[in-house]
């Protein structure tokens, strides 16, 4: 027969999903939170996002050309890294900061290991950690209140003892005072008022009318994006659930100021970068385990570390470092949590 035939090993059909489809779906799921960030913090937010994305894509492209590797910046992975890095910085940073962060994230966090699929650490978090360590003031001092709200989400006008800051910072300060009542007796009533206001401002926390990094404030929009990705089976339920439940349980037990089991888990779940981290960064496929048990342990580990850093560590927020530290345990978890074979012992 004259016809040319294709020959290949079975299977001869594949599912229609591909790497670009996955990456662009995650980007799509993140867009609502980004739009919220622009609405809440102003047009500078958009410039931060654009700078981070463009730097990320350029860095990856140029390194691939230098390494004589095929160019694959169209697969959406670099765009996603840039976007996530932008979401992890405050809105008012100078534009060179997200550029440096994106550059370091891509060049050091991803390309130095061989590109997509070979990196052990989440590249966006590598960039963020680098920026936090190098320019702590830019990264941790928030000055822009959200449109129509306050940085802290509460009304601090009659509270002199606490300085205006993000909810988690206020929590840290108030808790510090209340755990050492004897030292700060005159500040105690203000601290108690601040805490009780924090615990009743769930709606602000949920919608995002609080201070914080660009993409982390609106829990509502992030959750919508996260559930969309779970529906599309792009992320699983194990890591986000294990992460968030662990943080809830530990902050409930240890996060209170009246003894054990007096903490407010809802406050902690809705504050800071937990929802962004649990749904969009702790679920980064390349750097997380591939086994069932491995993923549960990974999520729990992130939860434990985040709670420890928030309650007893130096920083008010611990999501980025928790995820980076757990990323390092992924190969170990993969090795020791292999599933039982069908018909195995």
């Amino acid at each position: 027969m004259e016809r040319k035939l294709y020959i290949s090993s079975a299977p001869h059909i594949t599912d229609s999903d591909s790497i670009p489809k996955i990456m662009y779906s995650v980007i799509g799921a993140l867009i609502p939170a980004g739009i919220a960030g622009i609405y809440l913090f102003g047009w500078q937010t958009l410039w931060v996002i654009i700078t981070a994305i463009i730097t990320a894509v350029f860095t990856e492209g140029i390194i691939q050309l230098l390494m004589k590797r095929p160019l694959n910046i169209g697969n959406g992975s670099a765009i996603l890294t840039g976007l996530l890095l932008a979401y992890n910085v405050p809105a008012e940073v100078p534009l060179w900061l997200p550029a440096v962060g994106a550059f370091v994230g891509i060049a050091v966090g991803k390309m130095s290991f061989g590109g997509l699929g070979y990196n052990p650490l989440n590249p966006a978090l590598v960039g963020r950690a680098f920026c936090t360590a190098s320019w702590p003031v830019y990264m941790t001092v928030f000055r822009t209140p959200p449109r129509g709200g306050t940085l802290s989400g509460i009304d601090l006008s009659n509270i002199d003892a606490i300085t205006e800051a993000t909810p988690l910072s206020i929590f840290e300060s108030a808790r510090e005072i209340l755990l050492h009542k004897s030292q700060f007796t005159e500040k105690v009533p203000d601290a108690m008022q601040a805490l009780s206001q924090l615990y009743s401002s769930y709606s602000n926390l949920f919608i995002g009318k609080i201070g914080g990094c660009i993409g982390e404030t609106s829990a509502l929009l992030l959750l919508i994006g996260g559930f969309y990705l779970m529906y599309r089976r792009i992320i699983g339920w194990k890591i986000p659930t294990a992460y968030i439940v662990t943080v809830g349980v530990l902050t409930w037990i240890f996060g209170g100021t009246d003894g054990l089991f007096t903490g407010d888990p809802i406050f902690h779940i809705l504050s800071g970068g937990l929802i962004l981290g649990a749904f969009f960064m702790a679920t980064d496929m390349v750097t997380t385990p591939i086994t069932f048990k491995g993923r549960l342990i990974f999520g729990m580990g992130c939860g434990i570390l985040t709670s420890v850093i928030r309650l007893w560590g130096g920083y008010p927020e611990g999501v980025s470092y928790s995820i980076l530290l757990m990323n390092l345990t992924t190969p170990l978890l993969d090795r020791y949590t292999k599933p039982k074979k069908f018909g195995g012992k």
Partner: protein
Amino acid sequence: MPFKKTFKGGVHPPEQKYWTEKKKIKVVDAPETVVIPLQQHIGTPNEPLVEKKDTVKMGQVIGKSSKFVSAVCHASVSGTVTAVEKRPHPLGTNVLSVVIKNDGQDTWDEKPKKDSDYLKLPQDKIKQRIQQAGLAGMGGAAFPAHVKLSPPEDKPIDCVILNGVECEPFLTADHRLMLENTDDILAGLNIIMKILNVSKAIIGIEKNKPDAIKLMKKKTAKMNTVSVLPLTVKYPQGAEKQLIKAATDREVPSGGLPMDVGCLVHNVGTTLAIYEAVSSNKPLIERIVTVTGPGVKNPNNVKVRIGTSFKHIIDFCGGYTKNAAKIINGGPMMGISQVTDEVPVIKGTSGILVLDEKTAKLQEEKPCIACARCVDICPMHLVPSHIASYIEYNDIDKAQEMGLFDCMECGSCSFICPSKRNLVQYIKLGKMTWNQKQQAT
């Protein structure tokens, strides 16, 4: 005791049954030449009993082996042997085959005649008829039927499962058989149960064949030993280990066989052939094949003589469409792609699938992104991406430790991988490399 009537894992490729599921079986005329490979089964190949210039009759034994694990082969037409030489085989290599020029007469060697007392025959006589008919598993694996029906004494069977699942996309031959030959299939099941002294049988049928399920249920309503089990549509539900798990909640141990958990599985096509062999001494010289796919003008379910070339059958079905680009022996998930259409239908050919250029085009492999989809869906609960990586880096020992030989090459992992990695291909390579190393030492 209630348990989930399915198995953990599996994928959902588009079913594509609509091409042929409503088409009644058509008989294809016997071709001018048939090519009968002397190995169409798992086991020892047959030695030829004829040579060039011999005349043969239809149903005459033309190849036989002295070993137990083997299946004799018969001439599927009457005529003259024009050659006994190596010819292309649908499973890949060139295999010694008997080439017969059809004289068009269809003269039987021993014309099949219904023996109305067949149920009174002793067990070993029944098995002898099955062996003489050259029966092998017609679902695709082609394991000799009489061997499967002779489990050792220390492995008692308590449950027979009929495999009417047909989980491969496109294929509908078993579906049509269940609709058009229901009574004979059930008679065959009865024979199997008699041979093994078993009083419990389950007929597994996927839920995308509601008419077959309804008909089977109606025909078995009065039988209290046989039950019909509608199964959730999921690939590879028709794999025997997964079928046993769904039907009985028993897991065949790693490296073991269904008899290790007291079960025995037979394809409905094989069961029908068993009935015909035992009740009428009919040898295996024809079978039902689904000819389908976007590359064939008139997809159909056809009854063909063993040894008919794919070309002859595709021509019967209207020939190729303009964009036909790949010919597959079997289904799209586990079938073997063909180099030429001058290959014969063998005992295990359940389908001839012709795909178009768009589907056949090979996609570029990207690096693994550890998305874990292959882990989530593997029906044998392995970690395909890691096994494939070990083989890629030539650490076959580690791959074997991780369960290389538990893999049944169902193709689910390669199917679902978003990076389009050829996972099954690596695994096949790994198994081959391991076996070569074992032979060398």
